[in-house]
């Protein structure tokens, strides 16, 4: 099809427009496997998003009982049984890596399936389309109504008002659900209703309402085609084995009308299965013709598959003229070979292995996560102090983290230079020769600890010093090692 053009023969098209007006897309309703899958996933995603803040999780007295909570003022993040401190943000790094790799893996298996089924932009746009269809009717009706813009009647105006009101209500609720993740949900709902919620909550609801309404109501497929970076990245990551929504031109071409096809078939002449009914184009939410080959604008939603399957069933031809497939198989079929599918190949194995590895690291870190922690910082200036009797003293700033929901008494032991003595600036009490301090629940405590080596035991050079804290009640232990140096 492509003929090579001699560069000298090329002419510039100076009359091409600088910009293009948006071509409005009127996706037609469709039913079938993929449509049902999409409804199911939409219900699931929206259900999780809107209801999750109301799920409770008992963490004991005084601790928030919201299952998923981002507690910004106290710098805590709660996710069911997991509680994360700012020191543990690396979990989020791990989570982001896993998310990215999962996206890569999905892409290697099924192209942009994230875009077609799970992306918030798709989910909300789909919901908004459903509302539009319910109020204004299906494709043809909407096209007719839009075309008759000039003669708008009261009825049409009421219809549009209703549609936009419902859209705005959904958008507003979306913003409302968002802020519930940052505060106790039932309390915040009450505050929101009585206009006593903090200003910032209203601002965020406003932002999310506006973006949801504009992105899902007005921008729709334009977000996917012009604004989203993923299609560009995805195009670079994909390979020939990925299963993309594909028009099997080996079966479909040459396309012709149903009547002509039947005639030709009766004569025993070769003819394609595609009857050129344009149903696949009519249902496409990005308004493209998949028969032109896989393209950036396709979000892999599979609705064209449903549409074409319906047609094929009606005309008594096998379904899946459009289906998840790849070019390799089209060529193989043309050569009379059976199609092959390679889900397991180096690329997918690599992604899966990486996901498993990062997941395992995170799980390990999660399981071995300590609820009592100690950080030691050696004084830098001076690193060591000589006292009047010739003994050497080093000072350390020690930070204790009590991640439990109750106060606890801990004892501090220091193993360092021989016969070293210990002094804690501001220690609560001393029992059995070792200092004991109280750590308030869910906080960090910082203390200054002075370690003194007597003159006769002055270490020659640097020796390790080990700080160990023991929870007197629970026996939990944490330790950290630093150095004791001589001047």
């Amino acid at each position: 099809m492509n003929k090579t053009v001699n560069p000298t023969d090329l002419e510039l098209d100076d009359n091409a427009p600088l910009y293009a007006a948006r071509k409005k897309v009127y996706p037609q309703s469709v039913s079938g496997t993929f449509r049902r899958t999409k409804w199911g996933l939409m219900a699931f995603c929206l259900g999780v998003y809107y209801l999750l803040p109301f799920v409770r999780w008992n963490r004991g007295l005084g601790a928030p009982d919201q299952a998923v909570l981002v507690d910004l003022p106290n710098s805590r993040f709660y996710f069911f049984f997991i509680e994360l401190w700012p020191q543990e943000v690396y979990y989020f790094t791990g989570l982001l890596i896993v998310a990215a790799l999962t996206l890569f893996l999905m892409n290697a298996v099924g192209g942009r399936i994230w875009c077609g089924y799970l992306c918030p932009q798709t989910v909300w746009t789909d919901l908004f389309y459903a509302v539009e269809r319910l109020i204004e009717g299906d494709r043809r009706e909407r096209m007719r109504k839009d075309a008759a813009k000039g003669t708008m009647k009261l009825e049409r105006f009421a219809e549009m008002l209703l549609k936009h009101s419902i859209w705005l209500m959904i958008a507003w609720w979306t913003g409302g659900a968002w802020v519930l993740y940052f505060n106790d949900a039932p309390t915040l709902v009450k505050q929101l209703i009585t206009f006593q919620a903090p200003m910032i909550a209203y601002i965020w609801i406003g932002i999310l309402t506006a973006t949801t309404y504009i992105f899902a109501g007005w921008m729709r497929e334009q977000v996917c085609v012009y604004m989203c970076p993923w299609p560009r990245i995805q195009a670079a990551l994909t390979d020939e084995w990925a299963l993309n929504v594909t028009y099997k031109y080996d079966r479909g071409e040459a396309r012709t009308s149903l009547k002509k096809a039947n005639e030709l078939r009766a004569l025993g002449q070769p003819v394609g299965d595609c009857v050129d009914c344009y149903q696949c184009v009519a249902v496409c939410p990005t308004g493209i013709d998949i028969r032109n080959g896989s393209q950036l604008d396709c979000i892999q939603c599979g609705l064209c598959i449903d549409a074409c399957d319906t047609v094929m069933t009606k005309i008594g031809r096998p379904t899946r003229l459009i289906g998840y497939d790849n070019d390799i198989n089209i060529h193989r079929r043309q050569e009379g070979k059976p199609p092959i599918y390679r889900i397991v190949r180096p690329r997918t194995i690599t992604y899966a292995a990486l996901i498993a590895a990062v997941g395992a690291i995170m799980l390990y870190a999660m399981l071995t996560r300590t609820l009592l922690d100690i950080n030691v910082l050696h004084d830098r200036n001076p690193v060591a102090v000589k006292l009047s009797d010739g003994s050497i003293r080093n000072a350390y700033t020690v930070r204790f983290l009590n991640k439990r929901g109750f106060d606890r008494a801990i004892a501090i032991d220091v193993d360092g230079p021989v016969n070293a003595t210990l002094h804690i600036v501001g220690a609560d009490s001393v029992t059995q020769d070792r200092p004991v301090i109280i750590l308030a629940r869910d906080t960090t405590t910082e203390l200054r600890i002075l370690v003194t080596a007597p003159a006769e035991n002055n270490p020659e050079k640097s020796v390790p010093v080990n700080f160990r804290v023991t929870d007197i009640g629970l026996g939990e232990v944490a330790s950290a090692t630093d150095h004791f140096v001589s001047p």
Partner: protein
Amino acid sequence: MTEHSDIDHVSGTSTTGHQWDGIKELNTPLPRWWVITFYLTIVWAIGYWIVYPAWPLLWSHTTGIWNYSTRADVATELANLEKIRGDKMVALGNASLEEIEKNPALLALARARGKTVFGDNCAPCHGSGGAGAKGYPNLNDDEWLWGGSLDQIMQTIQFGARSGHSKAHEGAMLAFGKDGILKKDEIVTVANYVRSLSGLPTAAGYNAAAGAKLFADNCVACHGDNGKGNQELGAPNLTDKIWLYGSDEATLIETISNGRAGVMPAWVGRLDPSTIKALTVYVHSLGGGK
């Protein structure tokens, strides 16, 4: 403008006329909303130039109609900070030094505040961690010229030493050589005697008895019978292992010959009372406080 146009046969879109390896560049126009957004950003930028300080002029810059300035922002935020701190600093001012040390919250505040104030005012002489230097006492050790109790430290911070303030610590090491009180060989002898007080080796052929006599005649008035020093006079303990100027023979000879009179400035009036309290607690908690 030419009448010709090259249309790509596959897509039916016009091309820009560029081609690489037989791949033609399609002329796909931008969506209209995209172009409008682009123009809006230009309008926004122009508005920004008018509202905010933006353009450099030869000697100054345009100030913008809002007279916005980051300096003014900083000043406001600092004022707000002072307001927030206000209550706590008042609590600090009302508590006694001992109470502050016993109350974990006040102690933490005093240490934090003391540390910054120390960094701003004291670090040039005593070092950022109070490690001191030759002639500037190390505040982390347990030797104190003028006493290391909370009250004594506060006294010294407030009025200083030889600072010219009427309540300042006075008393200086005399210049025994320069003022002709001791002869050169006597100075060497007494220097070695002082070294022997803290167990340091003495020079070969030095006369210990003569040293003891010279010390008794000249030094005990300030440093005491056994060289243990006197905090009333700021006379250091000569029997311990800590030396403000150095313990080698040459340094001791120089000290005895020319005397020493380091100055600690008075901070009363320059720092407010609660800040001085915080500073006192901070220095005391460095580890050497008595």
